[in-house]
């Protein structure tokens, strides 16, 4: 749910997804952060994605927290021993944002104890870069995503983070019958992600880290469901980040929209 492999959206297809993170908070109130994701395959080597983020902090309020525009570029035309994809994201979010799509720098649980009214006064304009490295081996996909984030203010340092994960379908062969509950429609995996400090203070101190098993179910109709409970690995981490999401892929969306604007010919 956090680690990316090197596969991009199919060209012309649109994936609409809703994801959410339910986070426990030791000081302060638990929260439920949700985001809408529109992912479009521009080319076989380029996927663009728009995120709209919001969150509800229990016993506090519900707020819209900003947007992100993500682009992923496949760097090599063919499959190689390791497959790199360049990830570039621009974020304009408030400090009340809690979707925790990635953990970076010195992100810790205490950052989220601030009440929404106060947190939403602070704004982050950030550029985030990731190198998505992924490899398939005997049915497994193993991916490593180092990341660097630069708030667009000269005085704020670069922040670093990582995500690593491995996943595998429950069956490697497709069934002869059409079915929703066939084992090949399910995949399971595990991922670990966390912060690595910043240019001023690099390293693991005052950082948070999570270990998260994940299960995904993809139906032939284009619907997918994903669930991943993430467990904090140190005292700076939330004890639990329960993530889940549902998505629907619309093949041929680009062509459909093109037709709509061209009319019949």
């Amino acid at each position, binding site marked *: 749910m956090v680690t990316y492999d090197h596969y991009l959206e199919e060209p012309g297809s649109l994936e609409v997804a809703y994801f959410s993170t339910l986070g426990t908070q030791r000081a302060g109130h638990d929260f439920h952060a949700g985001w809408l994701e529109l992912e479009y395959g521009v080319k076989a080597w380029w996927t663009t994605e728009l995120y709209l983020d919001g969150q509800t902090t229990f016993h506090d309020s519900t707020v819209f927290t900003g947007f992100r525009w993500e682009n992923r570029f496949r760097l090599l035309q063919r499959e190689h021993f390791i497959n790199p994809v360049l990830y570039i994201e621009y974020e304009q979010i408030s400090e009340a944002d809690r979707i925790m799509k990635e953990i970076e720098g010195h992100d810790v649980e205490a950052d989220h104890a601030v009440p929404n009214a106060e947190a939403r006064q602070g704004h982050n304009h950030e550029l985030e870069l990731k190198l998505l490295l992924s490899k398939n081996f005997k049915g497994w996909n193993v991916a490593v995503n180092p990341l660097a984030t630069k708030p667009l203010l000269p005085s704020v340092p670069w922040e670093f983070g990582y995500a690593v994960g491995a996943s595998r*379908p429950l069956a490697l062969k*497709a069934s002869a019958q059409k079915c929703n509950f066939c084992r090949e429609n399910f995949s399971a995996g595990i991922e670990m992600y966390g912060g690595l400090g910043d240019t001023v203070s690099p390293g693991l101190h005052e950082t948070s880290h999570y270990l998260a098993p994940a299960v995904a179910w993809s139906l032939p109709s284009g619907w997918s469901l994903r669930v991943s409970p993430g467990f904090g690995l140190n005292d700076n981490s939330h004890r639990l980040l329960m993530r889940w999401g549902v998505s629907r892929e619309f093949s041929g969306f680009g062509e459909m929209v093109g037709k709509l604007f061209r009319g019949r010919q």
Partner: protein
Amino acid sequence: MKALFLGLGALFLGTVVALAQADRSKARNGGDARFDYAELSKAPEKARARQNPLAADETAVAGGRNLFERHCAECHGESGEGGKKGPSLVVPEVQDASPGTVFWVLTNGVVRRGMPVWSKLPEAQRWQLVSYLRTLKIDTPPAAASAAK
């Protein structure tokens, strides 16, 4: 806030429309060379020589058909006859290619020309697809068909 939502939505939709139009005008001007089979000839010798490990598996074709309908038919047509986005797979160039060659193209895609890499499907599923593609009937050009009669 509402204006921001609308603005972002309009920007995203505009990008999709512009890119869809660009693809269409390219195709109209004959500048799109997606529909050739040159990629098949680029398969390395070692890849070409690979045999389908599921060639004797009787269920492979049925599984491959399901996968084809789910992942390939949108571009290549329901019977592999070709569509607006993907070339026909019932032509001799594909049907006469070795199983290893077809598997190699499936695995690597033809990214520059719009075909994604399909290595996200496990190797066994890609071989099931190769098995199914073998069962598609070759399109005989009308002239050749009447000559045969």
